[in-house]
């Protein structure tokens, strides 16, 4: 029918482009649902704006926690801070998809009108800021001053539409959030990681095989070396490490992928080791791993973290000796720290 009238009009007008214009106008006119309204678009737009902002901000936090500039000192408390921000960042992603589709559907007819990863997030967010600036007047008009008069049918169908979008977002969150939020772990049937599934009951991101350290960790001449700006260098065997005073702590591993799992870690306080070696209070420690080829083979531990009594070089997890995939023989575990910085297969601590 649309083509018919388009052809007719084009024949009448005699212009080839006229046919295309008429076709496009015809398509735009086919979208007759009243939900293609400014008000719905604005409401979804506000949620989208909030969601994108949250994603952008938590993303920035995650980035700067992994690669802090020299002047930035992240605190080591609250213990679960990174877990929460990264969980929100990753779970919020799928939850935004229905919002985005809903918004696109609402404004779709208007797109037919004539005379149309780390850096990616900047581009997207910048575009969003420009878009919001443009549409600000509409937001004010629709949300804060009830200017338009509505028929009885509109609020109901609008609420149904927004409710459907909310339900889609909500359900997506519900079936994935359990991978980081323990009480809902039973519902996380569509999450990439299941809490409790993995060696020793804790999931793994990078395995020993993938890191290429499976042979090296078994060598009998393994030593943990503390060197650099220290009063006395240390070179400890595993037995000597186990001989030092051991403490146990419950801390989560919060992976950048969005999952997290808590476990009980037993080992040596990094602070005790530093005392033994003789380190100045504001020193920066670099913990290095046996792994050779990865940008995360070493991580910086700054003063707030290594002075924290909860920062450990762990030897056991939940009472049993560390599995190779979890960092046998020694791994770093600290509060409020991204999982990639919880260095595994630690062999050297470089103090500066």
């Amino acid at each position, binding site marked *: *029918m649309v083509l*018919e009238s388009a052809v007719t009009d084009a024949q009448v007008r005699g212009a080839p482009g006229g046919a295309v214009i008429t076709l496009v106008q015809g398509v735009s006119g086919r979208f007759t649902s009243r939900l293609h309204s400014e008000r719905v678009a604005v409401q979804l737009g506000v949620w989208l704006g909030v969601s994108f902002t949250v994603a952008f901000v938590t993303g920035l936090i995650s980035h700067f926690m992994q690669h802090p500039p020299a002047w930035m000192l992240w605190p080591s408390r609250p213990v679960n801070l990174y877990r929460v921000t990264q969980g929100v960042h990753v779970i919020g992603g*799928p939850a935004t*998809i*229905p919002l985005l*589709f809903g918004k*696109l*559907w609402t404004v*779709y007819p208007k797109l037919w009108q004539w005379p149309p*990863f*780390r*850096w*990616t*997030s*900047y*581009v*997207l*967010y*910048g*575009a*969003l*800021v*420009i*878009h*919001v*600036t443009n549409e*600000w*007047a509409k937001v004010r008009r629709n949300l804060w001053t009830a200017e338009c008069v509505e028929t009885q049918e509109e609020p109901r169908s609008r609420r*149904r539409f927004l*409710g*459907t*979008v909310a*339900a*889609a*977002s909500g*359900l*997506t969150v519900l*079936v*994935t959030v359990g991978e980081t939020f323990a009480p809902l772990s039973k519902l996380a*049937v*569509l*999450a*990439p*990681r*299941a809490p409790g*599934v*993995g*060696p020793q009951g*804790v*999931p*793994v*991101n990078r*395995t020993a*095989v*993938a890191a290429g350290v499976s042979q090296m960790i078994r060598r009998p001449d393994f030593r943990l070396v503390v060197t650099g700006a220290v009063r006395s260098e240390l070179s400890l065997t595993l037995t000597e490490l186990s001989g030092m005073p051991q403490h146990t702590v419950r801390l989560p591993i919060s992976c950048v992928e969005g999952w997290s799992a808590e476990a009980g870690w037993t080992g040596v306080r990094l602070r005790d080791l530093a005392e033994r070696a003789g380190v100045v209070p504001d020193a920066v420690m670099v913990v290095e791993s046996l792994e050779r080829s990865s940008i995360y083979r070493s991580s910086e531990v700054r003063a707030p973290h290594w002075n924290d009594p909860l920062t450990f070089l762990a030897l056991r997890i939940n009472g049993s000796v560390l599995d190779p*995939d979890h960092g046998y023989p020694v791994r770093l575990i600290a509060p409020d720290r991204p999982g990639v910085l919880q260095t595994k297969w630690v062999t050297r601590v470089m103090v500066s």
Partner: protein
Amino acid sequence: MSAKIRRWAGYGAGGALIITGLAGLLVDAARTHPFGWALWFGGLIVAHDALVVPVVLAVGAAFAVLREPFRSPARAGLVVAAVVCLVALPMVLGIGRRADNPSLLPLDYGRNLIAVLTVIALAAASAMAVSHLRTRPEARTRVLLGAAAGLTGGLLVSSLMAVQGMLDATGWALSLVNAVIMGAVLGAVAGRRARDLATAFSCGVLVGLLDWASWQLTLRPLLDGAVPTWSIGFAGRYFRDLVGDVLLGGIAGVLLYAGLTARQAAAARSAPAVSAAPAAPPRIVIIGGGFGGVSTARRLDRHAARGLRAEVTLISDTNALLFTPMLAGVASSSLEPRHVSAPVRAALSHTAFLHGHVDAIDTARRVVHVATGEQGMAAVPYDLLVLAVGSVPHYFDLPGLAEHAFALKTIGDATRLRNHVLGMLERADLETGSIRAELLTFVVAGGGFAGTELIAELFDLVHGVLHQYPNVRDVEPRFVLVHAGERILPELSAELGEYALERLRRRGIEFRLKTVVAESRPGAVRLGDGETIPTRTLAWTAGNHPHPLAAALPAEHGRGGSVVVDSFLRVAGVEGVWAVGDCALIPGADGRPYPPTAQHALREGRTVADNIAALLTGRSLTEFRFRGIGVLVALGHRTAVAEIRGHRLSGLFAWLLWRAVYLAKLPGGERKARVLADWLIELAFPRDIALTPSPSRPAPEPRPSTPGAPMSNGTTASSARGARHE
């Protein structure tokens, strides 16, 4: 700080962010592969426009078939399901799985996705059930009573099982939920059929068995990841649950029956004697054996098969349903008369048929007087009456028309016209001179569907057999169509009407538009503008008015004598009378009345039958709403024009479509076969010119003789459209 400054600050901030992002992308080009990024980004947009949007539009169009209370929950469920599928797709496909890391994607995502989708489907189904029940209080009560019965039974059975140590806390909760759901299903399914204790009990037992089979044998294994096997060995393991479920079902059935009986007794007590249901089933009488009447009767048959208590009688003075769209074919000797009438009795199962002529309707005493039987008169009493008497030709009291013009309303009319035209050819072959021109001139009055198709068919007939009459080879037959309006086929769009006119004109058919017929004499027809056309044949399709029975009803009347009805098809002001078809004036959604076509009459009949059934069972009535699907007009010479839902068609394809559509609509498989055979034979052989005995011209329809009923005169001019059955 003015709005303008704020606005520009926003643009600036956004722009800065974008530039930062783009710059970073380029600076870190080695790591970020900006080209790949752009490809991915662009690909996403293209995928959205090329894949997602068409799929969404197609699915949305498919959803248009669902009616409103069901459409929204179904649509919402589909949206949520689509989003979840999208999110879960990478995981179901196992993208990123590694052999060395079993903790990555450890779950059976396919099965989990199906489980989540099932939950969504169940939620949507429950929402649909709830919104359905909201509009049907009767069904809602039954379901709630069933659920209550199920719950009570569930408590009993669960306590029995708990006493024997077979249940723990979660077991209690699950079994109670199961009992409530089973009870609700029992209420919905058996609530109406549970007329006695035994039926209720057996229904309960059956539903319990079904519950056990669907949960223990089918759903549970599926959720555990195994394929359900309905083997005796497997079932034997769940024998205890079977006993429990069957017991639960039986108890619930008994309780449901008790609840329903108690409710009925309470209702009877609280509404004493005012309108006690008649002990005998209500009597419904349908007058008229055309499209409206027969479709009403057939629909009531369907309701009767589903339990409606009623005695239905159809009264008609012909015992066959005439398929009027093919009447022109009969008049032009292309179809046999009997092939286009379908016997009414064959189409009815529960309805009784009475062959007779209705003389009068006594609405005060609710009796129909029929001229039939040994005594000559029968009085048929009714509780509800459906008037489907249709329309009859109306000659506007113009002189000579009633005696000389040929109408095209019945089989007899068509046969007479055919014999007359062939008779004219025989006469013309005998004569010499100018009398032959008069004999071979054929005038049709009325440019609606009936008139246009008739003149085209007559043209084909005459020109198809002319070679068999050697003495008229030098005389050109003349065909004239007289139409009072500005253009023929007013129901079609102007373009198609013009096209049809041009096609017919090119063949040689003459048109007199904006003209009326003023008088008909034995050898000539005088038109309103004074022109006299010498002819012996005048076919009249230019006026119909509702049957006098409708005009005689003591109710409000519209133009021409049609009975005014409301949108539920009830006649206002008369108790228990409904009307459908050409004899009724039915208000459309936009205020204009629905046109008198067979398409509409068919559906009006269905609606009135549904409304009568609803009235008798205490449900709510539905309004009649119909948007015509389209119109098809055959123009002879194997061409036609059609307009279907806004799409215009013409030519051979439209003609094939005309034949296919009407063949499909013809009632009865045997009739379809015969008509198809007639058409196929017509391809090979010329039309039949054998004269057959002509039925005599019928007397004009007498005014009904209802004592005391006011006579209404339908003297206003009917529209020039003519009541064409489409």
